[in-house]
Structure formats: C-alpha cells, structure tokens
C-alpha cells in the first residue's frame, strides 16, 4: 500500500475517465455524421472544420438550458437518478484491459484499473445495477407516462440480463478464466473467440444492445414513443447526463465485446510496443460502433411485446444451447484439438434453427 500504487491508480483512473468522456463527446459527432451519410445528407459541418466543434456547442447549449423540476416530483431521487445512471456506465470500464502489462522503471503496470479475478462477474453486477437509474428516473418524475416508460425499460433490461450472463459464460468457458486479461491472452495468435463461437458473439451483441436500450431495442425511450419514456421530465444538464450515460454505455459495451470475442488489445507488434494496445482497442471499438450506428440507420424498432418475446423465447434457449455446445466442444477438444471446430458448426446449426423458428412465428397471425 505504498504511495506509488495510489499514484498509479489515480493516474489510470483519470486518464480513463477523460478518455471516456472525450470519447462520448466525439461519439455524438460520429453518430450524427454517419447517420446523415446513411440518409444522403451531410450532418453537422458548420461548427468548426467538419463539424468537430459540434459536441462543444451542444454541451454549451445544454448547460445554459433552463432546468425544470416537476411540481410534485420526489426531489432528491429526481436529482440523483441521472447520476445513478451515469456512474455504472463509467465504472464498468474499470476492469477492461486496454493493453498488455508493461514495465515502467521497476514496476509492472497493468493497463486496466482493476485486474480482478472475477472480472466478468463484475461486468454482470454493474449491468444489474444499471437498472436502478432508469426505474428511479421514471418513478421520481411523478408522471404516469414516465413511470410506465421507466418500468418497461427496466423490464427489458432485466430480461436481457439473463442472456447477457449466458453469453458471458460462453466467453468464460472458452477463455478458461473469469479474468479479462486471461481471456484476452487466450485469444493470441489470431485465435479470436468470434471464429470459434460466432453465434455466441452475435448473442452477446444483441443482448448488450438490449441492455443499453439502444436501437432496435429502444422503444421505451425513443422520442416518438410514450412521450420519450423515462427521461420525459428531464431538461438541461440532467438530460445531458442521461444522454452521456447512453453513449458511454455504447462505448463500454463495444469495448466489452471487443475484449471478450474480438481479441481485445491483441494485434501485430503489441508485445514490443505495449502502448499499441489501446490503439487496437480504439480501432475495434470504432468498427463495432460503426455497426451499431449502421443498425440504427437501417432497421426499424422492434415493438415492445415482440422484443420481450424475442428475449425470453428465442435468445434465452439459443444462449443455453450455445453454452451447452461450447462446453461439450471444449471437453471433446481435450481429446483431439480439431474437435474444437465442432463448436462453430453446431452453433451455426442451432442459430439457423432459431432463425427458422423466428421466421415461422412471424408468419403466424398472432404476431402480425
């Protein structure tokens, strides 16, 4: 417990917080430009060259906006709810390894703030805590629509938490450890887990999209539905905090997906220059965010009852089947290493069967 350890932790925490907050600001710019290009228009290009000062303009506007508190709102919880939504989305980045450990003087510095041995379980815990901010924001506004929106959003999040947990189990099984650094190290030499278990990666991606209330699962909070859901009564800086929390969750969720299935900080020459690790993570996160924004520009929203039916009746059994296939495949791979390729074959068969079932059920009149 010497002071160098404290200094290292504080510096790492500050760097990570500033990087995440700066990343959030420019993610809004990235999203608006990309959405605009998908929709054959230009996007923000007036505030500074290429519109790069647009996030700053937005921040200034939101700071100066008047903040209205509803008359009979529960003031303390109304004030705390945006903070309770933002804090878990930043904390969850504490266990993600941004690069391989490197030597600085006479200490080995790991490039994650907390390299704990239950890293994946920590991700699961913080995903569970993230529900509170939303349900309390909906309740404290003293507005029936906001409360309904908040409850719906929370119900969606806790339904998809099960699938999220099972998808994490797939990554734990393949990486043979709950420690995120070990999982990344197990993906060395191009053996990314997404090649061994593509359906697992897809399930994790869909479950995290639903967890962060992101398109196409954002019916409870979209502006055109239910009068904007749980953040109806919020304005000014509090609304900015909700906005910030959503985009932070997008970044962090892309980072988790990159770590668990796409090789994390691994790439060419990352051992010789450990600081290339964050660069590779940045590239992978940008590509995954591009896919998220692409999905937003292209697909319609899923209706709420179909969303819940999808989560419980399709994704959860598929995730269970994928876990079983992965476990059996790993056991068989101890006998003969080539048996590991049974995993993608059988999970693709399971995935094709699930899509067949979805297609059949969508043609039934009950869901039309």
């Amino acid at each position, binding site marked *: *417990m010497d002071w160098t350890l404290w200094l290292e932790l504080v510096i790492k925490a500050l760097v990570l917080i500033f990087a995440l907050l700066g990343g959030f600001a420019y993610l809004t710019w990235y999203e608006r430009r990309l959405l605009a290009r998908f929709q054959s228009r230009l996007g923000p290009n007036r505030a500074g060259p290429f519109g790069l000062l647009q996030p700053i303009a937005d921040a200034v506007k939101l700071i100066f906006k008047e903040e209205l508190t509803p008359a009979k709102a*529960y003031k303390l919880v109304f004030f705390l709810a945006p903070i309770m939504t933002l804090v878990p989305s930043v904390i969850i980045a504490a266990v993600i390894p941004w690069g391989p450990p490197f030597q600085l003087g006479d200490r080995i510095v790991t490039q994650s703030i907390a390299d*704990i*041995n*239950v890293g994946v*379980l920590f991700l699961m*815990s913080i995903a569970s805590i993230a529900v*509170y901010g939303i349900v309390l924001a909906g309740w404290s506004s003293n507005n029936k629509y906001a409360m309904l929106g908040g409850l719906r959003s929370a119900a969606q999040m*806790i339904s998809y938490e099960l699938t999220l947990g099972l998808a994490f189990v797939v990554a734990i099984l393949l990486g043979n450890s*709950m420690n995120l650094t070990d999982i990344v190290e197990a993906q060395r030499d191009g053996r990314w887990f997404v090649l061994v278990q593509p359906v697992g990666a897809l399930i994790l991606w869909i479950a995290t999209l639903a967890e962060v209330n992101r398109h196409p699962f954002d019916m409870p909070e979209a502006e055109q539905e239910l009068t904007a859901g749980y953040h109806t009564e919020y304005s000014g800086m509090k609304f900015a905090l909700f906005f910030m929390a959503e985009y932070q969750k997008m970044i962090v969720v892309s980072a988790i997906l990159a770590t668990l299935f796409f090789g994390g900080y691994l790439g060419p020459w990352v051992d010789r220059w450990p600081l290339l690790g964050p660069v590779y993570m940045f590239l992978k996160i940008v590509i995954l965010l591009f896919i998220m924004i692409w999905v937003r520009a292209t697909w319609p929203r899923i209706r709420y009852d179909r969303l819940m039916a999808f989560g419980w009746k399709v994704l959860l059994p598929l995730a269970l089947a994928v876990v079983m296939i992965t476990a059996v495949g790993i056991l068989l791979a101890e006998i003969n290493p080539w048996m590991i390729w049974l995993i993608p074959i059988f999970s693709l068969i399971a995935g094709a069967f699930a899509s067949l079932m979805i297609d059949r059920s969508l043609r039934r009149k009950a869901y039309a």
Partner: protein
Amino acid sequence: MSPELILFLVLSLVAIAAAIGMLISPNPVYSALFLVINFSTVAVFYLILGAPFIAMAQITIYAGAIMVLFLFVIMLLGAEKLAPGKVLPYQKPLAIGLAIVLMVESVYAVLARNPSDAEIIVPTEAANSIDAMRDLGIMLFSDYLLPFEVTSILLLVAMIGAIVLTKRAKGEQE
C-alpha cells in the same frame, strides 16, 4: 487504529445507518433504496474478507435483482400512505425496548470474549486467485452436489409458483 479498523468502522456505520433508514422511512421506495445501500456495504465487507465471488454474487442477485423486483412491486402497488388501523398501543415501545435489549445483550456476548483467540486470519493473496474460485466450484459440484441440484429445482418451483400466483383466472374480468 490501523487503517483496516478505521475502514471497518466507517463502513459499519454506513451499514447500520442505512438499516435504520430503511426502518424509519415513511416512503417504501426510500426504504428499498436504503436497503440497496446496506447490501452494497455488506458486499464491500465481503471484498475486505477476501471473498470476491460472494461479493459479486451479492451485488448481482441481492442488490441487482431482488431489490429491483421489490422496487417494481412497490411502484406498481403504489401504496405509500396507509390509513392507521387498530394497533395495540403498547406494541411499538415494547418491540423497540426488547430489540434494544437483544442488541445490547448479543453484542456484549460477542465482544466480551477472550480477545486473544478472536483475531481474524487475514486472507492472503492466494484467496483472490483463480484457484480459490476453482476450489469453490469443485466443492459445489462434489461435496455439495445435492444441495446444488435441489436449489436449481427450488428456483424452478419458485418461478412456476410466482407465475401461477399472479395468473388471472379464466374468464375473470379485469
């Protein structure tokens, strides 16, 4: 007054304050939030005691799932103000008095022991390693296999029970 002792005292004050807050708060939502603080503090105690798996399980299940369920039911039932019914007039003071007696007596009985054989054995670095968790997993599946399987059936029964209890009877008007 080692740093660990100061940390323990501060955290236990937070836990007890949250527990008392849960007790005396008139609004059930605030009670639930105080209980979440209490559970999180106990999870931090588990981390100090070198049990990270139980700490994360406590946060995920207790603070993250059970209390969210409580919050849902409290918000849906919307029962914040209860009309006072017929209460026995001496019940509250008697209960508080007896509880204080129980608290003082149990704390005295625990703390007045011979302090030499009461030191906590500090969990070493090995307790945080992957082997401790592996041992926990192996023990769950070898010595405690029957409770494990029975718990899984219990959870299934609880799920079915919860659905059956809240199902509308056929033909009942809402």
